[in-house]
């Protein structure tokens, strides 16, 4: 229990008198290690859309064209962004930056990786083929599929085979979920499986 004398001695020191008369409130600066809203750097965005895929808050980030021809940039809507920092971690070109995320990732060799898996519900799928026509990767592999709606190629990701949409090459999927959005009865679903990893040193 402190006595009155100890308080008087404490208040008679120079430091206390200076703090009492001349101290101001601490300036409100955000520390540099705080994971704030990501800001867009000058690096080139390759519109891979992985930041949009990983974002847990709907409507927080979108990747759009700017006025300069051929340039894309991510735009973050601050009202929805929850400052999780996942978009900062996953971008392969390091276009977004926030806090110490990039410094830590470079130091530790940590990164995140997506794997895409396509599942077709065989009971509900009616074989309409909208998903395989809508798929942008299918369009590159076999242009006849988008033009005519039919295909005999086995190099496409998926096509209607024997009445049901069948997946041939799941590894080519880029996870855009266009097929899932266009499906009339939610029978094709794309799972974006995220794995947080760290580079192992060679022994």
């Amino acid at each position, binding site marked *: 229990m402190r006595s009155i004398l100890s308080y008087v001695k404490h208040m008679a020191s120079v430091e206390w008198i200076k703090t009492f008369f001349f101290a101001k409130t601490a300036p409100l600066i955000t520390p540099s*290690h705080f994971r704030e809203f990501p800001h867009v750097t000058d690096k080139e965005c390759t519109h891979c859309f992985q930041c949009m895929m990983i974002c847990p808050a709907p409507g927080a980030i979108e990747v759009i064209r700017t006025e300069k021809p051929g340039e894309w940039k991510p735009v973050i809507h601050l009202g929805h962004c929850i400052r999780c920092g996942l978009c900062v971690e996953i971008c392969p070109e390091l276009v977004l930056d926030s806090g110490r995320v990039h410094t830590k990732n470079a*130091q530790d060799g940590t990164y995140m990786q997506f794997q895409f898996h396509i599942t077709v519900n065989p009971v509900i799928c009616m074989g309409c083929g909208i998903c395989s026509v809508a798929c942008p990767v299918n369009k590159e592999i076999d242009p006849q599929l988008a033009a005519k709606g039919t295909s005999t190629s086995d190099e496409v990701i998926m096509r209607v085979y024997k009445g049901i949409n069948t997946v041939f090459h799941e590894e080519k999927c880029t996870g855009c979920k266009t097929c899932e959005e266009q499906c009339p009865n939610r029978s094709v679903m794309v799972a*974006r*499986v995220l794995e947080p990893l760290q580079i192992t040193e060679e022994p």
Partner: protein
Amino acid sequence: MKKTVDVAIPLGPVHPIFKEPCRIKCETFGEQILAAEVELGYMKKGIERIMVGRPWQEVMFLAERICGICSVIHNFVFIETMEKISGVSVPDRAAYLRVLANELDRMQSHLIANFSYCYTIEHETLGMYLLNIRETVMDMLEYLTGARVTCAYIVPGGVRFDPDEEDLSRIMKAMDKVEEEMLRYIRMFEHGPLIGLRSKGIGIMTAEQAELVHAVGPTLRASGIPSDCRSEHPTYQMLGFTPIVRTECDNFARIMIRFDEILQSIDIIRTIIKTLPEGKIRGGGTIGRGQTTHRGEAPRGELTYRIKSDTHGRIQEIAIQTPSIMNIEACARYMIPGGTSVADVTSAYISSDPCIACTER
């Protein structure tokens, strides 16, 4: 249930002392409380329903935001449940770092719970001292994870960021400062005559009553029952953990247990920083299909996650049992009735550390 009573005093949803809205209807006979009923429903958000159909990287953030005060433990138990479903293991360094973040979060939660109690006994000075030292703990959480609340630090297979030597030494120095201040505040609380008068012998819940109503956490340990989920967690057992128990069963015991747990957390953090093993912080691993139940120790008690996931780790069914569900019922059934004054209702209620956001997700 409708019941006609002589005088019913509501402690309404809007109350200066409650952190979150809930209504306590007390049936009184003069100043004596005969019975109490707690009415919930002001904060239901339907989080469990939103979680269905989403993968772990979205559900993790929803789980964190169930409760702002104990967000790290929701993250921790959810990710541990998903890892248990899929058989993903965690490297040692990451396991220690998870416990570090968890204990820092436990300290700040106990500090704000005790601040809330000091408000109910109208000792705002001590309450503000506790909130002041809580800022130091939040700063340490910010150095470690990048955010003060809803840190999103724990991911399947490990943690997100690795603290360097400077961060760890800063945390050690802060722990020394927090311990010095906490010893002073505990002395103030323990020996303050008006504090003891207002807390000792108030809100009694005996051990038999606590077992009957399934109380959990510090509320239970203050009645003499040594039950703590951290006793079954392998990382905590490696660090040497034993639950803190008191036998007085009243408000004073519950608050003192929280103060003692703050000191225990400081010791655990010091042990972690001294014995932190080298190695990787992420072990990799994808989440798969399965169904399981897993529990952990939140600052308020035992937290249970029951999850069923489909082929690629998306949630099919989820049920979360938070500690405040049990504790609020324990409070309304045993701690509040039998009180000699309506003024003791708020202090008995807040001493059981309710978190209405957790109770109604």
